[in-house]
């Protein structure tokens, strides 16, 4: 009899494939979703590991490089350095014969009518651009000196903002904050929404009625109004932002979970659990919540971009994170103000933002297909 033994399982491999594992398998074969996940990992690495790689911090002000456009060349460029060197030479009352830069070091040949005091190098060190200037050779009884030293050159791949801060460092920080707000606020909404929705849906009747009317009342409050009130009472803080957003977003989650629970409630395994004598809370925890996971996971991938957008919106209004901290939203807001004079301030954060949202949407689509396969 085929029915009496589980003959299909190969020996030794008795661990079955859970629905979740099957979903992972399906997800892996979904190209756009996988590409989206890879993109997300790359962006997360860029945001969280990037600051350890680059030398600039997000609040470091480079007063000599305000609003410089992005470039692969180090700053200042050779021309600018030469001009600076000329300036220094004039101040030191020497004449610049030749000047060249190789990587981080420069070589300058200066001449004067009288022998040059080697201490003149201090003039060079005093400039922002040059450091540790030394005399290499001295010819003509000190009238011609060859100087070498270190050039202080900076890379601004994304350019700098209007305060002279490195945009790349700012985009990394913005990414950290946006991703953190996105995830944390989604988790807050997930936690509240799933438990609330499952209880409301499972209990049904009057409890359900009261709980859902409460949700509707919250729905009817304007979001911005709520945020402004909270910000006024508690002041602006990073923690408050995701609590506020999470506290608004859980409403959707609660409704979705409630709907799921209502249909689950009629499934026989819930009846079986009841017949076994499980308490309501045990049924909710052991049977209802695990079975809503599919739609919930999918909904979270929708909530994350939504939350990031909300945070951007708040930051755009000036209710978000406080300077010098920043988020993609506030960077974009800043960029939008300088769109004509410094378009890169808008372009770079916007690229990251858009790519993240796209990736999240692809991943969300992939998860939906993986968890809810119609072809099986």
């Amino acid at each position, binding site marked *: 009899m085929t029915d009496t033994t589980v003959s299909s399982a190969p020996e030794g491999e008795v661990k079955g494939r859970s629905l979740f594992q099957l979903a992972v398998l399906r997800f892996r074969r979904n190209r756009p979703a996988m590409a989206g996940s890879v993109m997300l990992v790359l962006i997360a690495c860029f945001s969280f590991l990037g600051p350890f790689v680059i030398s600039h911090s997000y609040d470091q002000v480079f007063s000599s490089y305000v609003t410089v456009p992005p470039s692969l060349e180090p700053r200042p460029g050779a021309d600018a350095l030469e001009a600076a060197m000329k300036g220094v030479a004039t101040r030191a009352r020497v004449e610049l014969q030749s000047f060249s830069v190789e990587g981080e070091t420069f070589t300058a040949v200066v001449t004067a009518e009288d022998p040059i005091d080697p201490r003149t190098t201090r003039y060079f060190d005093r400039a922002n651009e040059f450091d540790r200037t030394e005399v290499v050779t001295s010819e003509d009884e000190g009238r011609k000196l060859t100087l070498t030293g270190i050039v202080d050159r900076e890379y601004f791949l994304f350019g700098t903002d209007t305060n002279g801060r490195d945009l790349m460092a700012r985009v990394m920080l913005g990414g950290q904050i946006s991703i953190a707000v996105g995830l944390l606020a989604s988790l807050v909404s997930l936690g509240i929404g799933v438990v609330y929705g499952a209880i409301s849906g499972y209990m049904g009747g009057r409890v359900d009625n009261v709980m859902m009317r409460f949700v509707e009342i919250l729905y009817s409050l304007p979001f911005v109004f709520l945020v402004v009130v909270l910000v006024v009472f508690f002041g602006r803080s990073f923690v408050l932002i995701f609590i506020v957003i999470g506290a608004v977003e859980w409403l959707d989650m609660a409704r979705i979970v409630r709907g799921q629970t209502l249909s689950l409630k009629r499934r026989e395994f819930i009846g079986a659990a*009841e017949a076994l004598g499980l308490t309501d809370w045990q049924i909710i925890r052991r049977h209802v919540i695990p*079975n809503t996971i599919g739609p919930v996971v999918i909904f979270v991938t929708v909530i994350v971009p939504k939350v990031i957008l909300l945070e951007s919106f708040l930051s755009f209004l000036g209710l978000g994170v406080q300077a010098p901290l920043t988020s993609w939203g506030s960077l974009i807001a800043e960029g939008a103000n300088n769109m004509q004079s410094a378009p890169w301030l808008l372009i770079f954060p916007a690229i990251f933002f858009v790519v993240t949202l796209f990736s999240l949407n692809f991943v969300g689509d992939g998860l939906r297909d993986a968890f809810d396969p119609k072809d099986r």
Partner: protein
Amino acid sequence: MADMRKTMEPILTVRDLKVSFTTPDGDVDAVKGIDLDVRPGETLAVVGESGSGKSQTMMGIMGLLAANGTVSGSAKYRGREMIGLSTKALNEIRGARITMIFQEPMTSLDPLYPVGRQIAEVIAHHRGGTRKAARPRVLELLKLVGIPDPERRINSYPHEMSGGQRQRVMIAMALANEPDILIADEPTTALDVTIQAQILKLLRDLQKRFDMAIVLITHDLGIVRHFAERVMVMRRGEVVEQGAAADIFDNPKADYTRMLIEAEPSGRKQPPPDGAPIIFEGRNVTVDYKIDAGMFRKRALLFRAVDDVSISLREGQTIGVVGESGSGKSTLGRALLRLVPSTGSYRFGKTDISHLDRAGMRPLRRSMQLVFQDPYGSLSPRQTVGEIITEGLYVHEPQLSRAARDKRAIEALKEVGLDPAARNRYPHEFSGGQRQRIAIARALILKPRAVVLDEPTSALDRSVQGQVIELLRDLQARHGLSYIFISHDLSVVRAMSDYVVVMKDGKIVEEGPADAIFSAPRQDYTRTLIGAAYNLALQG
């Protein structure tokens, strides 16, 4: 007549048909190269257990496979190749020359449109013309399939009709273009026995009238015996045996066919000794369902699902509860376990449990268990089998260690004839019969004294049904269990129970020892039920 047909040219010739499905674990061959012929006006029954590929064969021919399925081989309708035809070309044949009716009449009609419109749509689509012009034809068809008062019913929505009527509408739709071949995929499985007999009779009459061939896909050999001229037995995508119905039934050549034929539940249960104590009793049980008051209705409507029913169960006894769907038998089962609000007095052993609330009932739950009909729905898909069956222990014996629970799980699985390794796997990896065994293991791990079995075999194949019944009887003998066995399938009830209660519209119409009920039913209703189950009322 049958001889004459043998010489006739087949209208549908299928050669080396293969169907396979792509899954993450590689391709699964559902149909492994089968040949079949359908001659004009004959009835061919394709028989097999679920998973034998009988439905997928037909779906493959009709180009109705799921997205991950592929079909190869050849299927010629009057010399015209159907495999690989474009959808448009295929539609000239399917729906017009070859039509199909499905198992589930509840879901195969669109709930948004009146049935008349849905039939008219089919006619208008294949013959041209407007839906309005098709109206006389629709009325004619509805009359043909025996829908009473077709003038009025033409405007009914599917939800206003019973299951049997919907299946009739489906048949009317299939007949609309006078097909040569009607493929009926388990057309009566979802219906009550009495309706089942009527639908089969209708199909037979229509077949005679239009001289069309019927391909009947079913797992129920009872139907095949009375209905088909030729039988093809399938197993695991291959044809095991085919031939004239009489030959197959009288001397089956393959072991598998023999097994299928002998799978009719057999045996009788001996009643418990007279002095057996009553372990469970429900007196004057009444269950009312409130139909929601809604916004504009003043008072909520009450629907009485169970009306003043009394039942008492002795130790070792099996009470069979039979009735058509809607008779309140399932509700009665749940009311007895105090899972739905009800009035009446209940005793468990000597204690009165009428006034216990949910929390008060909880300690008693371990002694009174429930097994459900649908082995697919009654197991949580996100738990392993081990977690599912030990759930009761988690509630009633929380002091048990993990290892002790695991040991009990192994014992329970062995007891229901499953490999203990199954406990690490998930329900979706098991067949229907195996799942029902898991559900039984879950109920038995608590060592209950009474079990309510709510149609535990209805969703299973006949051969698997036999095994599950064996198992239940065996467990009853070993542990002295008492069962309340709810079923619409009288042959199963007869094999399982020593006392039978017949229910209709929430009331008990007749009750008595099983043998008495089956051999000398007193009520007309009981007689109809038994007649429908055993004779299929087709001879006439």
